[in-house]
């Protein structure tokens, strides 16, 4: 939680002083600018790469709501992400006329429900049991989907990407990027709104000392369920456009451990205390990954992220944002 000392100082400077609507407007403006630049570049590689980075920002921010703000580590990111992706596959086969945003909402809702279910069973216990349960959840959801022929099972599913983007024209990839940008605005606005609200204080109290929070009147189970549903829901929404992005989705790639590691590593490296951390982590780590993938190899880039994560967790637990905050004081 950004302490009120720092908050007061920055209340007078720039972005931290903005009210909710003003912040959303600023985000939308930034998103529009980014989209505009991408269109100017015109290269579809730019759109593909940018989509990945923004997707990771969404995943990291979603993870951070439960992990950084509330202190409960969710290792089952791949489960929620894939639930979103595969719910799109199902809708694609049953109701292909459904616009993508609607599919995203459905994917998010499915993932949120699964999060609630898992949470309801495990959140009354110590945090570690929740984390272990999410690990096992990832394997189980993967097993279920690998055995589900309707979505292609182990053989995978093909999704035809429309040629033309609705609303804005141009290549469909540009539309995917726009949608992902919209999702990013939504999750960042939500994260920031939480930080400054009673809900955010409740989360912080749970993270700092759950027994004391409960004794102070905080309905810890209810809040943890809220955090789990929000976090899982956004992760599902981040996964929902994936089938259109890759056009061929199989369990091996949909459940790739990379998603899990990145979703955790980026907030840990960027900083878990505020919405800014996952953004910084997403851009830096995403950029670094892309660079290594292109220059050395894709297995090495994944190794580097893992090593960085361990290093930051040990040496700089407050992340990059924390390093800057300490310099300020």
């Amino acid at each position, binding site marked *: 939680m950004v302490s009120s000392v720092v908050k007061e100082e920055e209340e007078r400077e720039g972005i931290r002083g903005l009210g909710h609507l003003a912040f959303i407007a600023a985000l939308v403006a930034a998103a529009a600018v980014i989209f505009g630049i991408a269109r100017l570049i015109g290269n579809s590689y730019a759109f593909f790469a940018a989509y990945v980075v923004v997707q990771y920002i969404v995943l990291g921010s979603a993870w951070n709501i439960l992990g*950084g703000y509330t202190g409960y580590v969710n290792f089952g990111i791949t489960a929620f992400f894939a639930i979103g992706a595969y719910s799109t596959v199902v809708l694609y086969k049953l109701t292909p006329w459904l616009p993508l945003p609607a599919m995203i909402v459905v994917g998010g809702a499915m993932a949120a429900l699964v999060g609630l279910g898992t949470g309801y069973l495990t959140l009354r216990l110590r945090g570690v049991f929740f984390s272990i*349960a999410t690990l096992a959840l990832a394997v189980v959801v993967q097993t279920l989907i690998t055995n589900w022929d309707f979505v292609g099972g182990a053989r995978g599913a093909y999704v035809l990407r429309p040629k033309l983007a609705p609303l804005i024209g141009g290549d469909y990839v540009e539309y995917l990027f726009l949608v992902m940008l919209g999702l990013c605005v939504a999750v960042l606005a939500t994260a920031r709104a939480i930080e400054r609200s009673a809900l955010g204080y409740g989360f912080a109290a749970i993270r700092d000392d759950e027994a004391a929070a409960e004794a102070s009147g905080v309905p810890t189970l209810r809040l943890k369920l809220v955090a789990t549903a929000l976090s899982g829901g956004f992760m599902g929404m981040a996964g929902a456009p994936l089938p259109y992005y890759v056009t061929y989705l199989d369990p091996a790639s949909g459940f790739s451990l990379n998603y899990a590691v990145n979703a*955790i590593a980026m907030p840990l490296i960027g900083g878990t205390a505020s919405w800014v951390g996952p953004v910084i982590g997403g851009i830096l780590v995403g950029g670094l990954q892309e660079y290594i993938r292109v220059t050395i190899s894709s297995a090495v880039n994944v190794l580097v992220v893992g090593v960085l994560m361990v290093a930051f967790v040990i040496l700089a637990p407050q992340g990059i944002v924390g390093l800057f905050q300490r310099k300020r004081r």
Partner: protein
Amino acid sequence: MTGSLDLLVNAIISGLLLGGFYAAVSVGVAISFGMLDVVNIAHPAFILLGSYAAFIGNTVFGIDPILATIIVLPAFYLLGLLVYQVYYVAFERRDDQSLRGLSFFFGILFVAEVGLILTFGVDYRSVQAWYVSGNLNLHFIELPWRLLVPFLLGLAMVAVLQLFLSRTFLGRAIQAVAQDQQALRLMAANPTRIKRIAFGLSFATAALGGAALIIIQPVEPSIGREYIGRIFAICVLGGLGSFPGMVIAAVTLGIVENITATFFGPSWAPAVSFGVLLITLAVRPSGILGR
């Protein structure tokens, strides 16, 4: 009818043997999580490391796989000491265990898996030994050596550790640390040093567990993840801090998994351990024989 019954009996028996193997891979976590309260979710990665050590010993040097892991046992023990030291300095001392400690081990799990992929590739590896194929023929039943040897290895490991914990001074100190660190400090013993040794032992068991694993099935780097759920389901079901409980839970899970695999197909096995874990957590979180 007798066909089904035969199938069931076979499933139960091989499930029993499988349970012994599961005990071999879980005893390390029974120590690190059950007794030391350190959530080492990276344990399966080190089991895999043991498997690959057995693989190298076997294919490059022609040694028996179990012997190969016994040779590297000291290295694993030292590695355990090192990892605990890092964990202690970075997290336990700062009392910041939950989020970052878990992420630390998750990172190690991940780095180990990727490291193995880069070194050995994603192909399945297996070992050669007389017991990897063939059965022990007792008149009424045939027991595959492939299952029997890991089963015996698992039971032996648990028995030796149990004796160590209850009969030796160091072992009893470890039990004391597991129950009450404060009292230990008052007796002028250093709990950190004892925990470090115990953690080292937990890593040592991973080496032998790895040998058991590669005997039972060919390995490739990503199978570690399947075992996290299994191992923790077993430790939770058995009750943290209880070896006998862990063994019972291991055998139970082995049997239930095997019956499920026989009648519904092998790909449902991971769902079984998750189901067991969830049910245990929901109904009786302290486990069968937990404190």
